């Protein structure tokens, strides 16, 4: 999967590198998915600027 994804983006990899990236990335992606907060449907990344303003000192 990694090899194909990078090939399509024209990023060259050394032989055997795709397997090592996959091995390192899989637990990171799993960890990211495991800790997600249940967000309201309406939340999108642009709300961040408003929250930064709302939370200020």
């Amino acid at each position, binding site marked *: 999967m990694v090899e194909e994804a990078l090939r399509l983006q024209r990023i060259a990899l050394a032989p055997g590198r795709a397997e090592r990236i996959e091995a390192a990335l899989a637990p990171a992606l799993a960890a990211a998915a495991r800790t997600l907060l249940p967000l309201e449907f309406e939340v999108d990344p642009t709300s961040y600027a408003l929250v*930064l303003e709302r939370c*200020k000192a």
Partner: protein
Amino acid sequence: MSDPATWSLAEAARALRERRLSSKELLAACLKRIERWQPRLNAFVELEPEAGNAATGPLCGVPLAHKDMFYRAGRVSNCGSKIRRGWVASATSAALERLGAAGALQIGTLNMAEFAYGPTGHNEHFGDCRNPWDTARIPGGSSSGSGAAVAARLVFGALGSDTGGSVRLPAALCGVTGLKTTLGRVSRHGAMPLCHSLDTIGPLARSAEDCALLYGAIAGFDARDPTTSREPVKADLSQPARGLRVAFSPAWAERDAHPEVAKALREAAAALRSAGLALVEVEAPPLEPMSVQGMIVMQAEASAQHARWMRERPADYGSAVRARLEPGYAIPATVYLEALRQRSALLERFCEDTLRDADAFLVPVLNLLAPTLEETGAHGGAEMRKVIGEIGPLTRWVNYLGVPSLALPGGFDSRGMPIGLQLVGRPFAEEMLLRIGHAFQQATDWHLRAPRES
């Protein structure tokens, strides 16, 4: 008279204003130290001893040097890389313009991790930067030269950039004070980009007071950077910190911190209490989950930023940076965007829970003792990846939330290396963090200790 290069920035600026010392004499004192230290540290990429500045202001005549990624019209910014080696910028960065307008001198450019994408201070193109407390150990990165030069008293302050800890890691490892600013507080116009959702610019200096002087000069709205805030800039340390509240998690320190780091954290809490601040016990925020989300954002954005050169000139990257960039192309867009969606909710939680009854959260910068350059370099063996992985988790979450953090020297470990602590605040709370840091530094002397020339 003691060596004026060892004075604080505030003392040096005062001496210049009162004409007890000339700018030429101060510069000569710095150059003398640079001559002795540079061969051991490799902190400077280029020295500009002819620096001059006709402007008058609060930093008039004070010698500074900056990470080699702040552009100056007609001058070279190598960005720590082979790809940008010898590249001449056509415009000057907003932060440098503002320091220039305040009268500061720029006497050189400082070493850094290639494209600011590395936490140790290694650099395959310009040579590794070394820690002045022990030249076998890492100075931290990516603002490695900034940390080393300020710690060795070669300059009075330096700009760094902080995308995942790049101001605070070298500040902590080199035993100086560093301010990671709120996202949008300091203009990024004319500074090398890495990750647009995380990049911030901040000063490294010898004290919170010195950082306040530099921060006051560089912060504020800039129409050329649409992410900058119009929030007024305040950097007044004359108000006492007594009564301000600092959140601290003894349970986290007991459970998760390295014993020597935990001891420094407890002693810092006691010092703050003795300085009249209130210590509030809290549960630590979800540091690891926030760090994981921050890593996703960092990898995806850094790899996108470098996509063209990674296609056209991959062999011109150092091996470590290329290895850091490659995984970013395999992160699904949905995972990246989900990490950005999570950010608002996690920021609100941090402010509403951790800082509910407090003005700042006290936590270490690093949870390990300073490793060696060898342990974390290309020949570091099987442990290398693990050690490097342990460097960023306590800093990355702060960039992910976008909040400010002040890194302060908080003691020394059993090997004589500095231990750094950080005060993390609400958005735009830089002045409050600097006031707390100043109070801490009036109650302790860690920031006054300097590495010896051997």
